[in-house]
């Protein structure tokens, strides 16, 4: 058996196809991105090596709104962590306790995750439509005409108008993960707490949620990383406009590379997003590290 499992040829046969594909399409291109990010290059003409100048341009004397776009992605991350995840957590706890229609609700809440952002985008475009949209029609009907807005077209409301659907679309995913986490906690713990006189709320806050910390950590990481690289819905709804109000690093990156043909500078944005994702992952891991991992 050992001889069979040591067979070098067989190992290569099994691993190499996946490994070569992965190296060629993920690992090597990342290195190229790093290299490009040190160049002044329009994609066709000559490449000029300019060191870290692109990175300096991202943050010092920046003119294309990159810093603001990073800020926007952090705002989205903030609302994801402090609005989306708490909502998902409440839903998960209510459903996991065992309520009539548990499976039905869980199934239905997840549906928006499966819909293409292009479709979700069209839906929200109609909800936000200045003259026919749901929101403005509703406001007019209840006599609040002066609150009507061109939600996506107004610099002041556009980012909020982007965040609502973003948060709404992914609530079901967080709920699903948190629900699985809540379900994996032995019911005796909840029962013991209730017998000891704790009420529902105390049991959840003191017993259940602390035990769910590992899953909550995963959700926070995914919500933050997801916000750092968010693209689809913004691209579809506003493309970053009006006047960069809803730009995030990925929409700016696409514009920089494919409309302005600044390949080097665009690459420095890509590398920035990668580093940002890695740093945030490590940071959240540290921040939410349980002092003593509870086992049961």
């Amino acid at each position, binding site marked *: 058996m050992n001889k069979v499992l040591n067979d070098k040829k067989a190992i290569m046969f099994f691993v190499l196809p996946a490994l070569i594909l992965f190296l060629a*399409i993920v690992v090597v291109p990342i290195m190229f991105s790093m290299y490009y990010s040190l160049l002044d290059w329009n994609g066709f003409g000559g490449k000029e090596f300019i060191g870290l100048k692109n990175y300096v341009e991202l943050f010092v004397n920046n003119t294309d709104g990159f810093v603001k776009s990073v800020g926007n992605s952090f705002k989205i991350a903030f609302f994801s962590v402090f609005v989306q995840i708490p909502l998902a957590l409440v839903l998960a706890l209510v459903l996991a306790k065992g309520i009539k229609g548990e499976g039905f609700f869980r199934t239905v809440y997840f549906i928006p*995750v499966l819909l293409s*952002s*292009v479709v979700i985008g069209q839906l929200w475009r109609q909800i936000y439509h200045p003259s*026919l949209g749901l929101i403005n029609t509703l406001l007019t009907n209840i006599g609040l005409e002066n609150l009507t807005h061109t939600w996506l077209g107004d610099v002041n409301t556009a980012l909020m108008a982007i965040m609502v659907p973003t948060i709404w679309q992914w609530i*079901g995913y967080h709920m699903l993960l948190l629900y699985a986490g809540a379900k994996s906690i032995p019911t005796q713990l909840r029962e013991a707490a209730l017998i000891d006189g704790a009420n529902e709320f105390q049991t959840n806050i003191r017993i259940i949620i602390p035990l769910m910390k590992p899953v909550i950590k995963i959700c926070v990481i995914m919500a933050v990383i997801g916000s750092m690289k968010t*693209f689809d819905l913004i*691209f579809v709804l506003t493309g970053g406009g009006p006047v960069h109000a809803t730009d995030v690093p990925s929409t700016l990156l696409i514009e920089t590379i494919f409309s302005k043909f600044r390949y080097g500078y665009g690459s420095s944005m890509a590398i920035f*997003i990668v580093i940002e994702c890695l740093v945030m992952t490590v940071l959240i891991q540290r921040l939410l590290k349980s002092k003593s991992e509870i086992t049961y």
Partner: protein
Amino acid sequence: MSKHSTSQSQMIKVNKTKKRIIMVILIVIAIIQLFPLYWLVSFSLKNNAEIFAGNIIGLPEVYRFSNYSVALANGEIIGYFLNSVLVTCTTVIVSSVLGAMAAYAIVRMKWKLSKITLLLFLTGLMIPLHAVLLPLFVVLRDLDMLNSYLALILPYTAFSLPVAIFIFTGFLESIPKEMEEAACIDGANIYRTFFSIIIPMLKPAIATVAIFTFLSNWNELMFAVTFISDKAFKTLPVGIRAFVSKYTTDWGPIGASMVIAVLPTIGIYTLLSKQVQESFRAAGIKG
């Protein structure tokens, strides 16, 4: 005694009201989450006059199934649909097979670099597509491969491998080795063992991987929008965008085309909702 029982019955009453309130809230949220599907279907059966007369959320006055024949008429949407099917299904098959093979060698076979190889693949879980977008674009352009099926299939497969390997290695670690040992003693070589013993045992994990890979690539937009500009190779998300800007004056068919685009994912979810949820959970919980 009687005092005690009234307070108890009051408590039960309070509990019942509380439960009712929770139920109402849950149902309201369910309606919100289902609204997009209702909106999509009703929208696909209306005409401009209705939509622009302000009937955005109501049911259509007349069910205009002709919107579907308009959407399907010149074969454009069908073409996008078939492209999506071809690209996504190839990705699912190739990444499942290659992922299972690599996971098998990593978990079961004995070689020095197995741990590092696994680590390398799993780091891929954190790599955003942005990191490779431009280099892949440049290579595809220089090889004259923009606007081809491979321009999407290759990156989709490579980016699906980490999740696949993550799920397969976890699953392989949980199944006993006896079957393989027996096969080995019976004289089967390792390739035979893998394809006729391991693959059948991996079926539940393959289902998980396949479902997740399918659903996450079906809607992919960033690569699709940058690598494909030729109508002949557009997948649905990009195709629908093009369709929308072309038919800005005729909304019904746009709705119909979007219904067609979401049919496969919603269909799979209706039939396999438990497995879909399980695959998203499995792919999500990665420590």
